């Protein structure tokens, strides 16, 4: 088994080899090294959030799918297995990707701008989005990917040593490895390392509340704004995601929303308008919304990249509905990457791609008009 020291060495080595582009977007995952773990790469640990059913069945209560799982079978996400009537997570402390990213890559634009964030993911997802950029790990079972052993304490240790004040559970779907997320967040408590997640928002009430008690921020991928699209293109449902967003507001967890705009599938301005209205009315006009550019991937190789003009119209439409912080993503150099003061129009944070160029905020407020800008700034 790889020691933490060896892991850090490989992290550092890969870092040197992979520095590219603006900022410090670095893929530091020590790919190519398989850490042998018992049972052919699996590391089963008792799962949380489930109930036992007759005849050694269980029902998982982590996400709205509520999988009923018989002995020896797994839930839809492929990482939670019933063994003789008990549910186990197979991915606790077993990330398959570990990287150092800028927080802007998540994207979180209102959380510690310019900070490095230790990003990690395990295999598995409860959705099956046809445009998934990370399908090789998200749609894989844990034994089908190379994984590392990285305990929550070690993840926090790596983050500290790399100067990252944040750990992000991202790339795949953190909900399905919630036990690990929670333990990382707890391990970082008192050590100055906070944890954020980048999620599809398809999670049940109790695990969401448990996670939010520890998390610094939650990013929700709102994949569209109609049920048909969700059913046909994500394998999930819209309604529970909207419910999660409402709950996040009640829980007071800092939340940002990302919408991947896919040509012909979810790019009608009517739909964008409805989405923006929902955010304004149910969540509040200060919640940041990012419209990001789709590039062909996975099962949507037949579609073109999103025209920048579509994203611009989406931003305009959303702002017309009253949203105050609307951003564009995957369009480096576009003014829509910047944060402007809704009070006086001053450019507060200037970005290019994933790089922070300027941060003019003063104590979380506009230096000119003193308007408070919502977010996690310290």
């Amino acid at each position, binding site marked *: 088994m790889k020691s933490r020291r060896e892991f850090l060495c490989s992290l550092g080595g890969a870092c040197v080899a992979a520095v590219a582009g603006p900022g410090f977007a670095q893929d530091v995952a020590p790919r190519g090294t398989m850490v042998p773990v018992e049972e052919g790469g699996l590391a089963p640990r008792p799962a949380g959030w489930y109930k036992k059913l007759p*005849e050694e069945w269980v029902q998982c209560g982590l996400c709205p799918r509520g999988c*009923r799982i018989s002995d*020896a079978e797994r839930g*839809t*996400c492929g990482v939670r297995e019933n063994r003789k009537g008990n549910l186990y997570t197979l991915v606790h402390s077993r990330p398959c990707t570990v990287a150092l990213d800028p927080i802007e890559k998540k994207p979180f634009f209102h959380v510690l701008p310019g900070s490095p964030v230790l990003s990690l993911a395990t295999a598995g997802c409860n959705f099956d989005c046809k445009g998934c950029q990370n399908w090789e790990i998200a749609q894989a079972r844990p034994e*089908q990917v190379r994984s590392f052993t990285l305990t929550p304490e070690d993840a926090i240790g790596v983050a500290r040593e790399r100067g990252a004040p944040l750990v992000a559970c991202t790339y795949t779907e953190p909900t399905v490895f919630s036990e690990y997320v929670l333990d990382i967040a707890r391990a970082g408590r008192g050590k100055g390392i906070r944890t954020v997640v980048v999620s599809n928002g398809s999670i049940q009430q109790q695990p969401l509340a448990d996670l939010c008690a520890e998390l610094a921020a939650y990013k929700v991928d709102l994949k569209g704004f109609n049920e048909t699209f969700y059913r046909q293109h994500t394998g999930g449902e819209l309604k529970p995601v909207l419910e999660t967003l409402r709950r996040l507001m009640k829980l007071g967890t800092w939340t940002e929303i990302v919408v991947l705009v896919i040509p012909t599938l979810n790019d009608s301005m009517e739909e964008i308008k409805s989405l923006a209205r929902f955010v304004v009315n149910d969540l509040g006009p200060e919640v940041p919304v990012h419209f990001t550019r789709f590039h062909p991937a996975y099962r949507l190789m037949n579609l073109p990249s999103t025209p920048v003009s579509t994203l611009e119209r989406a931003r305009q439409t959303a702002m017309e509905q009253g949203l105050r912080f609307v951003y564009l993503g995957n369009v480096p150099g576009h003014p829509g990457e910047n944060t402007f003061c809704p009070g006086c129009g001053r450019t507060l944070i200037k970005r290019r791609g994933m790089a922070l160029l300027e941060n003019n905020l003063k104590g979380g407020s506009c230096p000119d008009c003193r308007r408070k800008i919502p977010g996690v700034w310290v």
Partner: protein
Amino acid sequence: MAEAPTRRDFIGCVAAGLAVSAATVREAEAFFLPGPPPSVASAPSRPVVAIARREGMIDRPAGKLDMRKVQEALGAAVSRAAGEKTAVDAFQKLFTPRDVVGIKVNCLAGRGLSTRPEVAAQIALWLQVAGVPPGQIVIWDRTERELKSAGFSPSQSGPRVIGTDGDYEGRLREWGPGASRFARLLVEDLTAVIDVPLLKDHGLSGVSLGMKNLYGTIHNPNKLHDEGCNPFLPHLSAFPLLREKLRLTVVDGTTGQCHGGPGFSPAWAWEYQGFLASTDIVAVDAAGWRVLEERRKSQGLKSLALEGREPRYIRDAQKLGLGVGDEARVDVRNV
């Protein structure tokens, strides 16, 4: 002078899954397998599902298989399914010496409700007698862990016994409602497949038989269990990569389970002591479903339809032209 094997020697070889000389096995088979009645040799005009059961196949109290009865029943089922006189004739009809044959077993539920190693080994042996070299025979399932849990000994030589584990091809293949990466073994090595599922209940798909066992050839079966696995099962089974390679389905019904599946639930398991075989995967699934329903009834259980998990995918597979699930159009024979 070579000594003829005793029945004990022969059974020992089978149980150990060893490669033996073709002549030895042919001799042994000729000695131990009674030929079926002449009528079965004629080509079937409609799909045949052969069901062969033998009392005493499971030797009590030890629980071991009586290999003579296994050979009798398995040989009768396979030969009748292929319309041949003997098992070896059947394998010769269905496979050539150039084939690389994968025997897809089902080990999900561990010992107690998995394809018996002895049954897989017997099939491997007959393939060898039929001329397929041992190096071109692979007994395989999703993972080595599951194979071991079912009593198989993974091996890289002779007839290989291997788990796919993470070895799926890199590319994604669309197959109608789903998209998957297939086991590299299936894509790159195998020219033919023998599907050897169990006779068992499944809490989501209703039953787990031939089509369901093919989920073990792809990387993402966990994504394909909604709506009773329908329409995923018919479409996956109809995908050319599988359809063109699948030559025979043999349901290992030494032990069946009519409820509480797919895991092993001893309360609902019973010694069916038989095999169902067909070259038509839809027909054999339909016949297996019927056996399971009969058992459920005898145990006072509701039908799968009343439990809301009727395996509609079997009928839909027929609609897709994959085979014949309509009982009236299938020649089900007890042999």
